[in-house]
């Protein structure tokens, strides 16, 4: 076949195309790496979306929180509701941080309670007098970050409990939207007694709420407010006694008067709640987050820095060693990666308010062959997230 070799030699002597420079080959390498990274990220995103979609299809049980509709709408409530949501920043600043208001407790987030990351969760009951005052404070605070609708069911706390018949409303059927976080209220019982000597059941906690409730509130008291799995309040932050004998109208009027005991209790509690909620408003936090009172409250909360900033700024992912590094270096890296992912998983924030995280775990795989530059024998770690999405 020397004939074929001879003829093809002409192709080599007079090349069909010029050789591209080495810089071109290097730029191709870079492009290939970028493409691979983009594909990997895209696939991961698709997996997350698919997981949520599958969970959504599989979950046909509607959420209980939005089901109940009020029957005894009180016309008055609208104006008091407005009074609470329009408490001005200057009023809040004038109220400041009264000494008789309990500061929310900072908790250490764990994997078991990660479902309430990015969620302000309230668990209470309509009969509960402590919940009555805590709802007011929550309403003032939450209104600085979003908007309530369908908040129209007036209730009174139990007449046979301490602080009887406090005027408040129920979160049943309430809807709240905020660009910063999700609000998940659960009223466990109504204020209507049942035959068993208790109160008629209303709503059930979500699994994420239950895990946080059991972990942070071992005595099981009401109300329980969990702010993003970082701060909790148990019971009432201020004495419900300030509401005794007052109508909704009285309470609404007094919220705007910084010197009134009602404003001191409710607005003072709201100041701490706002400071805790500001830690969840990562990017474009509302102006109140930079007010002196909120900063002061944040100091009192023992914050210093936003706990959510730990994800991006506090600890970074360990740098992967070169492929030819000794196995001992790779094992050290694997351990560091595991610790990093545990922190990242504990701080994971649900990206989709319509979905609930059911389980989050950090799993390791001992590689039996080299993968993405990681040699065999090294344990590679990954975060696994399971969730479900309720009907909109």
């Amino acid at each position, binding site marked *: 076949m020397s004939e*074929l070799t001879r003829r093809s030699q002409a192709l080599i002597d007079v090349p069909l195309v010029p050789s591209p420079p080495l810089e071109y080959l290097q730029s191709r390498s870079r492009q290939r790496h970028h493409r691979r990274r983009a594909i990997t990220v895209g696939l991961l995103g698709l997996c997350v979306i698919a997981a949520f979609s599958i969970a959504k299809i599989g979950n046909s049980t509607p959420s209980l929180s939005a089901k109940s509709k009020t029957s005894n709408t009180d016309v008055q409530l609208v104006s008091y509701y407005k009074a609470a949501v329009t408490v001005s920043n200057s009023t809040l600043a004038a109220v400041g941080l009264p000494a008789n208001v309990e500061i929310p407790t900072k908790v250490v987030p764990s994997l078991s309670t990660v479902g309430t990351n990015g969620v302000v969760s309230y668990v209470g009951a309509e009969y509960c007098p402590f919940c009555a005052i805590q709802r007011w404070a929550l309403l003032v605070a939450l209104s600085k970050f979003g908007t309530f609708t369908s908040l129209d069911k007036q209730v009174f706390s139990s007449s046979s409990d301490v602080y009887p018949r406090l005027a408040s409303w129920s979160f049943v059927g309430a809807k709240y939207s905020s660009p910063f976080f999700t609000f998940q209220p659960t009223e466990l019982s109504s204020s209507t007694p049942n035959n068993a000597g208790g109160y008629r059941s209303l709503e059930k906690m979500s699994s994420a709420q239950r895990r946080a409730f059991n972990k942070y509130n071992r005595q099981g008291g009401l109300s329980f407010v969990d702010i993003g799995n970082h701060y909790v309040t148990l019971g009432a932050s201020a004495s419900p006694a300030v509401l005794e004998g007052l109508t909704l109208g009285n309470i609404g009027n007094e919220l705007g008067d910084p010197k009134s005991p009602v404003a001191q209790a409710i607005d003072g509690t709201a100041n701490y709640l706002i400071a805790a909620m500001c830690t969840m408003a990562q990017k474009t936090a509302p102006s109140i987050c930079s007010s002196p009172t909120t900063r002061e409250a944040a100091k009192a909360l023992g914050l210093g820095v936003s706990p959510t900033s730990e994800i991006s700024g506090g600890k970074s992912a360990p740098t992967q060693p070169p492929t030819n590094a000794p196995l001992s270096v790779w094992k050290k890296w694997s351990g560091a990666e595991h610790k990093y992912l545990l922190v990242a998983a504990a701080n994971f924030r649900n990206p989709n308010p319509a979905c609930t995280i059911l389980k989050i775990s950090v799993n390791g795989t001992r590689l039996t062959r080299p993968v993405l530059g990681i040699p065999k024998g090294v344990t590679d770690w990954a975060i696994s997230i399971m969730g479900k999405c309720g009907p909109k």
Partner: protein
Amino acid sequence: MTCTSVGIVSGDRTGFVQKGELVFVESFDAWYSREHDRLIATLVLTTGDIDLAVEGVDEACSRALERWERVGAMDSPSGWVYRVAINHARRVARRRTMEQKFFQKSVPKPDLPAPAGELWDLVASLTVRQRQVVILRHVAELKETEIGAVLGISRGTVSSTLHDAHQRLGRLLDDDNES
């Protein structure tokens, strides 16, 4: 494979320590400037498409450059590059076919310029396997064992395929000369 550059340079070759032994590897520049045109000629005659050949060769060379310490120390760096280039060209061709089917458009393959066109006419009648083996043997000038490694077949298969291809090409060349 553990590779550590020790910075020993001898002419066009650089020394690396591999598995505790000092191995001299030809520099990528030297290998690239010597082999590029042969790679292009081989791929053009294997695929019958200049664009596909250039794409395959560029991709394979860029990957070889990225891991030259390892590829350069192989028994046949060119064999490795041919294998990557052929596989990549095959993937690109498959993708193009799918795109054409999807968009329902037919793009005619441009004719190869002389003398590549004449050579392509000669080898186009061979089966794909025969063509690859013949081109890798006589244009790329690889040994039969290297061809086997490139195509993932045994040396015996390479030999018999080469034999059949030679017989067929011999007949074609005879016809050529007679006409």
